């Protein structure tokens, strides 16, 4: 267990990773209502487990992996499938999806595909790196990227991202 957290370190963690957690959780969940809770969960796990990171890249990879696992747990949890009124106070507007846009098309993919697309096209990881981050077989990630690209081909070409 690491010593009590200093404010400077807490601010560094939040400033460095909170938006990443928000975007990755949006990719999995297609909503932003749970993003703050997921952020808190991920940072609390970081405090609890106190891993020794060898580099900032290592720390970021840990954050991504833990966020993905937290989102997958949430997707499976029973309470999420029952309608629960969420307080609007912490509402973060979800992106406005323009009809025919790439974002709208990505949102039609299953959660696992959306997360891979996000890590590939926004965070810039290779499929091999994504496999390590998500604990999947590299061929599985390549399959998901290939399938996602097939679905998004025309839109990707128009954005110059293929």
């Amino acid at each position, binding site marked *: 267990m690491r010593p009590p*957290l200093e404010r400077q370190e807490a*601010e560094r963690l*939040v*400033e460095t990773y*909170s*938006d990443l957690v928000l*975007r990755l959780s*949006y990719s999995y969940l297609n909503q932003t209502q749970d*993003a*703050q809770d997921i*952020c*808190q969960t991920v*940072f*609390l796990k970081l*405090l*609890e*487990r*106190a*891993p020794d990171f*060898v580099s900032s*890249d*290592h720390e*970021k*990879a840990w954050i991504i*992996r833990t966020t993905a*696992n937290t989102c997958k747990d949430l*997707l*499976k949890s029973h309470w999420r*499938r029952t309608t629960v009124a969420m307080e609007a106070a*912490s509402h973060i*507007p*979800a*992106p406005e*999806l*323009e*009809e025919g*846009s*790439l*974002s709208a098309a990505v*949102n*039609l993919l*299953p959660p*696992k595909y959306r997360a891979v697309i996000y890590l590939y*096209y926004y965070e810039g*990881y*290779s499929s091999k790196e994504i*496999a*390590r*981050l*998500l*604990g*999947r*077989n590299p*061929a*599985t990630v390549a*399959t998901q990227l*290939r*399938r996602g690209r097939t679905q998004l081909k025309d839109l990707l070409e128009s*954005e110059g*991202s293929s």
Partner: protein
Amino acid sequence: MKTYRDQMHGLQFTPEQKAAMVDALLAASQAPHQRRPQPRKALLFAAVAAAVILCVACASGALQATVAAFSALFGISSPAQTQVIQDRAQVIQTSDTDNGVTVSMESVMGDAHNAQILFSIRRTDGQPLLPQRPDLSWLINQDHALLFEEDSTLNMFTPAEDDQPDRYLLSSALHFVPFEATDSVLYFLFSVSSPNYPLPSGGMSLTLRNLCSYGPVSGKDEKGSIPLVEGTWDLSFHLEYDTSTLSLPTGQTFHHGPLTGTVEEIRLSPISIYLSFRYTFEEETLAAGYDPGATELSKEAWLEEQKREWFSNLPLYVTFPDGTTQDIQQDTVDLGGFSQGSVYTLSGALQTVLPLDSIASFHLGDLTIPLPD
């Protein structure tokens, strides 16, 4: 039109929300630390293995290990599930040793489109497999932290002579059975799925190289993993396991809220499901719930989101003669559910074992399909 990157870049917490998170984090770090007891899953594995050894019906160490692995990973516990594994698992027990470490393919269980392959990895001198380094303690508490730097698991299912290897659309998942840092042997399960074409069988070979934990990930450094156990293991074996699958009657109509579906195909095996149905939605009923003041989504995007919610909570379960049920909606790994056109498909390996002979009926929405006796 905003690009995908612009859309994602626009997703940001406000400065006020970030400040609130910092305060909450500081408060949490100063609260008395109560370490949650880590579930002793390795002990569960050993306990189940010990119980299985006492089982009169268990035939071999590989079968014992298979039952124990499935129990530790997926929580199977009933005699019916144990019997399924004993009946269907093909014992392989082929191994290779390199650098003082032996990797063994213990067993395979599957059907025509899915396979669950159990492996073990251990040091020949019986010492703990993983390096006993304090800086690796985080690895033990991190799910799915182990990967092989190279593995040809999927290649072995793609015939070399096939001119369209991509059509198999293979996917896989790797599960390490929960372990302790000092364990001398680790077990891991490869789940492989090929929904569109049957998996090949017969003589095959497989190469695994270097067991690694994920480490620094760099855009420039392809070898970003930390090798923990180095070696190259080549396994040759013959796969010929029970591939039987149960096909249920099709053509029925079911309902789930505004969703109406017509069954096109249902295939069940003890380790997998393949389900496809043609669907329609009561668009007016759905659209009536749209409130532009309550969401930032356009009406079209909101409707698509609603449809996905109805798919994700579609009742999908089996019932046993004693009235108990087993939900399989969220138990599908790999490809999961996918909508294309007006057809929805859910397929892949399950994180459980279905004792088909013990199932009384299959349920989809409000549809009940009795299983044949």
